[in-house]
């Protein structure tokens, strides 16, 4: 075998390698088993089906007027920025948090009404953990002398039911309603919490 033959053979081998390399980089030469995951027909972003809207399971509230909405409120010290006026501003994404226990929240209804239900709401978002708060309700017609209409009781708050509870009692005349919170099982609060307090 002469030198020329050696060079020719080597060149042929290199060409073979190059051609294989080129083939390997051609789409046609890459056998591809494709899976295309289809998108569903949608016209707008939807709620994921695995998270049924809990609104269907919310604790129902009376459809009558909420006498507490926007009325003057009085409480003790609050935590951080969670001021008392958040408790009846009509928004469940703002809330009042007391600084410590027990915590009282009084609402001046600015008039005398026949009342029979008090509702306490937290933010219904699922990131608000379920908890129990112990609450008593008192009413007054003069803002000084209060009568208990609902003894202290433990109430379960759960995002699955709207994170809200209602306390019903016999109809009574009231110009002031006071709630007394005495405990909570929530892990990240050192006081009472309420996003809305409603009076019907």
């Amino acid at each position, binding site marked *: 075998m002469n030198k020329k033959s050696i060079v020719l053979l080597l060149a042929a081998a290199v060409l073979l390698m190059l051609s294989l*390399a080129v083939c390997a980089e051609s789409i046609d*030469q890459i056998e591809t088993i*494709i899976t*295309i*995951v289809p*998108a569903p027909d949608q016209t707008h972003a939807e709620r994921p089906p*695995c998270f049924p809207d809990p609104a269907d399971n919310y604790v129902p509230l009376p459809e009558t007027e909420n006498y507490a909405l926007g009325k003057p409120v009085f409480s003790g010290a609050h935590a951080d920025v969670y001021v008392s006026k958040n408790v009846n501003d009509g928004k469940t994404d703002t809330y009042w948090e007391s600084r410590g226990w027990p915590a009282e929240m009084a609402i001046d209804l600015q008039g005398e009404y026949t009342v029979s239900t008090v509702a306490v709401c937290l933010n219904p978002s699922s*990131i608000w953990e379920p908890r129990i708060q112990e609450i008593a309700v008192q009413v007054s017609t003069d803002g000084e002398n209060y009568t208990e209409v609902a003894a202290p009781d433990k109430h379960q708050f759960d995002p699955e039911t709207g994170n809200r509870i209602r306390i019903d009692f016999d109809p009574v005349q009231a110009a002031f309603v006071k709630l007394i919170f005495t405990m909570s099982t929530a892990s990240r609060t050192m006081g009472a919490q309420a996003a809305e307090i409603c009076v019907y």
Partner: protein
Amino acid sequence: MKKTRTLLAAVLVLLCIAAVSTGVAESAPTLLTIYEGPKTMTSSEAAKVSVNGYELFVYDVMVNHEHIWNANTQPSSTPMAYFDFSGKALIEIQMPGLGKAVESAEVLPKSWGISPTVADGTVRFMITEPGQYTVVFNGSVNKALHLFANPLESEVPDQNDPNVLWIGPGEWVIDAIALHDDQTLYISGGAVLHSIISVANAKNVRICGRGIIDGSDYPAWNQPGSYARVPIDLNHSKNITVEGVIVANSNCWNVNSYSSKNVRIDNVKVISGRQNGDGFTFQSCTDHVVTNCFARTWDDSLVIKNYSGSTKGITFRNIQVWTDLAQSMEIGYETDKGWVLDPEISEVLFEDITVLYNFHKPVISIHNSDDAFVHSIAYHNIVVENAFMQGDNGNNKELIEMTLQNSSWSTVRDEFGTIDDVLIDGLTVVNTVDGKVPRSRFSGQDEEHRITNVTLRNVSILGTPMTSLKDMKISLNDYCDGITVE
């Protein structure tokens, strides 16, 4: 001559074996999974991307090219796409969003040695391994394409399992998702989920899939009426796994863990462009392992702090980082925000970290700004492809910075901690903004609060091995001992 013939024959046999091997490898089919985008969305006009001839849905995600803090910043966007595969994937890219012809392209990490071709406005390159690829066009980071080539999915949860919350392809919105003990949340490829995921006081929780957790619905957290909505928020939880998902457009920081333990995070991709968009940020955590992840962030990329106790046992391994703002690997500034007794940060490992770009502050930093004992910290095989730190008004643009001074983030004032036993073994800086070695700085506080026993080994900057403090332009104050370059 006989010897020559034998040699030649051997060469030919080897070549034939190689050729046959190539053919065999080629005969193994590529398995490719691509995901249609939601029908409520349109693919980005900035980029067209295909894999083996199959076109991908391309998302525009928020990024930020302002390399200085701005409370009212306006992010820009860049294209991002993803798919799953094994075998060979020929990537083809066209960039109509550039507004000019593509003349050159570079695939990052550079250390992977991928050389794309550019012809007729199309960029082509072949990949054979899953990973996160970034393509930079015409030498500019503008409209850089992030391409996440996932491995094929395994251990997909059972959709019929009552503990599995299954989110399929499509566009979905829900205010928040709270996960409880033993639950799995699966976010399918092709899904865009506008929500936040909270794991609080829970154990044995898994978050997985290929989909996107998106925060674009929410204004930046510091804007009036807004608040921080953390896409993945672990809080006082344990035995948590997060795998495969993409976190984009967050209105604050991204993957957060607070006082949690035994957390595994794998193949999670984060891209952020808004205020305080930290990437993977852990406070007072123990036993966290983060692997094969990607973080392009407009604030610190990989972060460890103490908020309510000590930190111990955190590993970041095989991570790509692109830091548009702040630090790439930050310990601090808060090291005792909870003001606890004897706070520590220890047993922290950063290993096989590739910093694609750092545009702002130090790549490696320990800012012990409270009174913690920070020790047993190691950095192994750190590659900085582009160390472009511009700092703030000429300050804070070091490559490495370790300090014991109070800062605006300090909780404990006038009390100080220490830093001891730090090893940086394998640090390569490939490119710097000015072609010079960047400075580094070590600053202890006083006689009792010192930085001690920091070893830098196998450091190379701009191709030159570093063998002394002078080489590395390291400045020390009087309260540092045992800072060595080997």
